């Protein structure tokens, strides 16, 4: 009798263990996204706005390091700083003084550059309404399971962001663009980061679900630049993005850091301005959202228990419809 109980126990332990694995796997895949995209925009022109290009390139560098490939990044730089004739070290853009870190690197692909960075092109990229001859590298080909990171930097004010010193995008236009994206099912969750003066005004008007926003300063405050480099002659980075870069350098693809850590980046003692964030439109609790859900590209694996013969068309069709049904249940 005892032996039977013992054997029953022995059998149930592996069964219980496999249940444990499944629940752990279920938790791991609970965010619901299958691919990651990033749209990184620098909106300022002219050599004295070097720091905005350095900001964008440092986020680009972190995002690439954590796994998002170039084909899933739309990088827009309004002016060329690296090969600018004023740059004493060509083909480099530095983020730390004394030229410690070259964020431009050797393997960079800029999709929109120079005069192509306009409000119209930015909104077309977001909403997907591009002319048919646009190449793939310039399109945001996201779907309803994509997590998108959008980073904007430049000069801004209360309710607007300046593009190339000649036009502006207002917070209402941005909110409407995100609503279009939501209605066309172009994102699963979206993280919006903005590093400009009075940046919090840009996310006040959002009204679509699944949006989380961070800004470097509140309405009425200015975001300040960090440190100049005497050899290059301009300020290299903005304070908020400098500390954001330092924070992201500690993050690796398997890290468990969550959004609450991101909200703590650059408190007022370091940044002088007060960074703000908005999470009321976001479904999940920010403490359960990993940094790598937006900054990294973690590959998803779908576990299946039965074997499927992919060469037989009947089986393949059954598998695909079964897959679709299970995806919606997640």
């Amino acid at each position, binding site marked *: 009798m005892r032996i039977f109980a013992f054997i029953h126990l022995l059998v149930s332990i592996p069964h219980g263990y496999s249940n444990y694995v499944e629940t752990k796997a279920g938790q791991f895949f609970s965010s619901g996204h299958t691919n990651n995209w990033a749209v990184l925009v620098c909106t300022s022109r002219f050599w004295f706005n070097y720091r905005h290009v350095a900001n964008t390139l440092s986020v680009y560098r972190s995002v690439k390091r954590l796994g998002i490939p170039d084909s899933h990044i739309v990088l827009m730089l309004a002016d060329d700083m*690296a*090969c600018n004739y004023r740059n004493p070290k060509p083909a480099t853009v530095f983020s730390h003084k004394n030229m410690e870190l070259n964020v431009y690197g050797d393997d960079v692909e800029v999709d929109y*550059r120079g005069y192509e960075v306009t409000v119209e092109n930015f909104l077309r990229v977001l909403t997907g309404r591009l002319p048919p*001859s646009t190449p793939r590298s310039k399109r945001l080909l996201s779907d309803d399971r994509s997590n998108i990171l959008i980073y904007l930097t430049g000069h801004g004010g209360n309710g607007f962001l300046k593009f190339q010193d000649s036009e502006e995008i207002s917070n209402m236009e941005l909110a409407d663009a995100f609503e279009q994206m939501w209605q066309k099912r172009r994102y699963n969750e979206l993280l919006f980061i903005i590093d400009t003066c009075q940046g919090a005004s840009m996310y006040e008007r959002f009204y679509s679900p699944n949006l989380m926003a961070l800004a470097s300063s509140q309405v009425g405050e200015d975001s300040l630049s960090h440190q100049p480099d005497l050899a290059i002659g301009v300020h290299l980075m903005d304070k908020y993005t400098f500390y954001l870069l330092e924070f992201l350098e500690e993050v690796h693809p398997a890290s468990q850091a969550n959004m609450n850590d991101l909200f703590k980046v650059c408190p007022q003692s370091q940044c002088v301005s007060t960074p703000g964030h908005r999470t009321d439109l976001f479904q999940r609790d920010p403490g359960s959202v990993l940094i790598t859900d937006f900054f990294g590209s973690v590959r998803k694996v779908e576990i299946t228990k039965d074997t499927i013969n992919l060469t037989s068309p009947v089986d393949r069709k059954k598998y695909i419809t079964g897959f679709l049904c299970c995806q919606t249940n997640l």
Partner: protein
Amino acid sequence: MHCKSLWIKASAKSPAKDQFQEELVIRPLHSGDIYASFQFRTLWDTDFLQEGQKKVSHYRLFPKSLGQVLSKFSVQELHISFTQGFWRTMQWGQPFIPSPPGAELWVWFHHTVSDVDGNWKELTNVLSGIFCASLNFIDMTNTVQPSASFKPLGLGNATDHRFLRYATLPREIVCTENLTPWKKLLPCGSKAGLAVLMKSEKLFHSSFHSQAVHIRPICQDEQCTSKAWELRQTLNVVFDHYTSGQGKKEWSLFKMFSRTLTEACPLASSSKVYVDITDNPELSPATPLLSQAVVLGDRRTYSVYDLTRAETFGQLRSFNLLLRWKGDNMLRPLLHAERYVAGFGLQTGEIHTVIYNNHPYRAFPVLLMDSVPWYLQLYIHTLTVTSKSRDNKPSYIHYQPAKDRHRPHLLEMLIQLPPHSMTEVTVQFERALLKWTEYTPDPNHGFYVGSSVISALVPSMVAMSTNFTQDQPLFSSFVPVKEESSYFVRVYTEPLLVNLPTPDFSMPYNVICLTCTVVAVGYGSFYNLLTRTFQVDEPSPPLAKRLANFIRRIRGVPLLA
């Protein structure tokens, strides 16, 4: 027997042959600078454009992205170059492959294409994605169809210039984001072979940097029985004597590129380094291999290093070339040109193009092509061509006037240059006022006018070789040599930077403020005048007076005022 038939079947379906060669030519210049020219050539025996044949799907050495572009848009020949800096002909001589500052694209389409403009528009968009450049700014306002200057460099008896499109973007910047996809087109990438030397931090810290892609169909042999597609990727760079060279005429591969060579590309059938030793520089490591070539009308001697042989790399498995020279004499280039804008103010101006023929006794004709944007309105009746202060009438002129916002000016002339002379071409223009949405975000920088192109067959001092050999080094076989006594040269002038009358963009805001203020003040005053009435309002007297009046009323005495 069954096996034999299988073997025959297999060989019949074997993929088309392709071949890859890489080469680096180093030429010390008399000013102390050093010129390095990389060429990578892929030859492929296939036909993208043949109808009825199954689409090409197996790519080995030829990059797939370019192959698909060629077949989709029925391209016969494609030449694209990205250049930073201007080639100084008087100090550096003639380049192996010339290119204008900015981006230049010219394409010959196949004669079966029905909508050339549509294909051209889509092709520029696709190329802008491949090379990360803003080539999508090429449209009808900066595209021309030259009638004589850009004949096909490969096969093709295309004489109908309706299938040719040419455009330049003089403002286009070249940086690492253009080099990265260019390197990815190479079979070995930047991991092996000569491409390991291409580090952007050194390449862009130079006086001149130009990278190009040239695709054309060529003959494989003398009788042209078999044709092949040739893809040449070229990269020309000139390192400055003072900024990179520390002021010494002493260079090494490590000093130029901050790398040394460790191996040839395993996919290359030939991988060579040529060093120009005609002026007897000191060279180490020494090599017994020498080669003589007549290139650009001059017989030069080259030391050859074969990287496919292991002994080139020596004990340390690394090849670093050291070069030191003292010589000062340079062959004076026979043809060079300059261009500048004369005049003052923002209303009119004059474009001067000066062409020098430095040959002591021979005269030769040159074809000058000018493509001027529509907002510089040329007055062609003021066109003058003078040589040695005498009028020199061109024997062929092709002029297509501009159409506002639609088409640029195209002027092509065949001018005979007298020996040892300077020829000046001048034309006056007027600057147009653009609509306010047509200005760039930084209009005070100015507007660029693309380089003029001067194409000529220059008489050669030395007999050129017209023999067709597959073993010719790549730098001497780029342009086909048709006759012994002359060689083909293309010279690009400087681009022009012209200021257009620029409005004050804050004026709409100023006008609105001023108008609203005037209306408010004017209408407001008028309204007040008509509708305002005045009523006397007695102020309430102070407390003391009120008390006094109260007491006086009780007493029955008259009140105070």
